[in-house]
């Protein structure tokens, strides 16, 4: 008998038959935020990131430059941002994005309750870009804000093979005596621009 068969047989032998139903998610009452940006910004700040609300796209380049003056090697896949023509797709392996100073990437939508943004890797060739870049700026359409994770998961699907990640603030750790250090392995700063 294969290990799979042995394991499934063991599970069937032991599992209980009490028929607890699987609860539905529709209609589950959750907290709603009146000012979504305000809540998103508060949540993101609490985890070491920063949210910036921009009136329109014309100021995007200047606003990003203002916070990343030093950045030389920039990769950008956001339409309407002219800081780099390199969208990262020319690199053969993830190792080649190790030298990226700043990644400017598109976020699909943002979640107010926890300051997280959903990044769908269908828009980048190398998933590692989100984690290897020294700094990251995520650009999200300001109409794409939801209150909680319940609304968030309504928007996500995985019909095809792929990868997606909720990013909330920069990489961080508190493994040394509970002292919070921003920038563990991944980006050392995490800005979210809502445009």
């Amino acid at each position, binding site marked *: 008998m294969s290990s799979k068969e042995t394991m499934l047989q063991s599970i069937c032998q032991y599992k209980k038959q009490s028929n607890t139903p699987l609860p539905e998610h529709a209609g589950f009452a959750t907290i709603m935020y009146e000012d979504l940006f305000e809540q998103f910004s508060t949540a993101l700040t609490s985890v070491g990131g920063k949210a910036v609300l921009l009136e329109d796209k014309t100021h995007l380049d200047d606003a990003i430059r203002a916070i990343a003056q030093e950045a030389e090697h920039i990769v950008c896949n956001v339409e309407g941002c002219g800081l780099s023509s390199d969208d990262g797709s020319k690199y053969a392996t993830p190792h080649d994005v190790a030298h990226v100073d700043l990644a400017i990437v598109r976020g699909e939508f943002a979640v107010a309750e926890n300051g997280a943004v959903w990044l769908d890797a269908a828009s980048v060739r*190398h998933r590692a870009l989100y984690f*290897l870049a020294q700094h990251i700026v995520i650009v999200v359409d300001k109409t794409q804000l939801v209150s909680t994770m319940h609304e968030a*998961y309504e928007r996500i699907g995985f019909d095809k*093979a792929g990868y997606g990640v909720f990013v909330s603030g920069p990489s961080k750790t508190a493994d040394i005596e509970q002292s919070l250090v921003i920038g563990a392995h991944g980006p050392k700063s995490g800005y979210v621009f809502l445009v």
Partner: protein
Amino acid sequence: MGHPELAAKFTQDVERTHWHDKALWFVREKRDRASKSIPEWEALRRKAQQIKTHTMENLDTYLEAFEKNAKAKGIQVHWAKNAEEHNRITLQILNLHNAKKVVKSKSMLTEECHLNPYLEEQGIEVVDTDLGERIIQFRKEPPSHIVLPAIHLKKEDVSKTFQEHIGTEAGNNDPTYLTRAARAHLREKFLGADVGITGVNYAIADTGGIVVCTNEGNADLGATIPKVHIASMGIEKIIPRLQDLAVFTRLLARSATGQPITSYTSHFHGPIEGGEMHVIIVDNGRSPILGSEHYSQALNCIRCGACMNTCPVYRRSGGFSYEATIPGPIGSTLEPCKDLAKHKTLPYACSLCASCSNVCPIRIDLHHQLYFHRQDVVKAGLLDKKKERALGFAGWLFQHPKVLDFCGKMARKVVPHLPRWMMYSSMNAWGEHREMMDFPEKSFKELYVERQKRKQS
């Protein structure tokens, strides 16, 4: 050694015991604030409990659905009955790719399977990449907490360890400096690795993907740079639908560290370009717990560590005193389920205060489980003989009220006049760490009778 002996070792350093207690209480307080920020917190906990209970009652169906959907996304799925098989499958995949360097992100399952020493014996370099894990890997220690593996160490300890292994400055204890040094060291490891191994926080049956949560982004780097990603999951990590994640992602980090969500919540549904993704589904003693009357809810655990942070015994005895992969209240119930004789002291490492059950995001009845385990220990004849005799005598005494009254009377008369050396002898285990209480002049029974008389007159 059992928990009492190992705990005694830890508590020898009184100052450090207090420091450890405070560090964990700080995390517990952050959890309280985070949970209070969500008005539907209790409803979420009930929902999570229901989803998990339902899933465990239909575990075979969901695991098979997961396999089918994962395969359709190009993920290779393996089944391992036990730790040996898990390790063998991992090695086979590594050998297939002639891999010599592995980066691993924190996974309590690979810890449970003793994967690192197994691979190292085969000449493979395994680097734990979570900062806390890397620190304890250098020190050749196991994790002392499932979320905060190096919570038992001070920054001076970390500084010394790093000085020895990665050449940081002597005496520089600054956490930012030390973290930056580890960052540079580990980036090289990520970029030079052949394979990345991660744990699994959730496997989703209806999409065939897995979710990994970290704050550092180490699992993400390990799974997106090397060509091959191996994810190890216990059978209990499955959830039915993608939407169920809304419940668990809201509960996990808030319960664990008080954050609204982990920095990275990664959803892997297929390999990277030109790469391979493998998922190993592991039983290793879990399935028999499914059928247990008292302990089956323990499999619902999502490993947030909240029960440890709140436990007055864990906070003061440290993770190593449990001598188990998973310490604290959840470990004290899971480990005896697998090997009661080896872990017979763990159910007693508990004051039955129920704080663990109250903070558990999945509402696992931890303190009840520990109480049931104690009864199992007694039934199995594994109780310490001294304790058994004492409890046997107490049981007899309480069944004979007249003798009890007499003994009480004698004790109240005699004990206050006994010399200290006689009172605090080896016969009095209670007095080993405590001062005895003052004996009252009258028993409760006598006081009650007097009171009744006063009322009547």
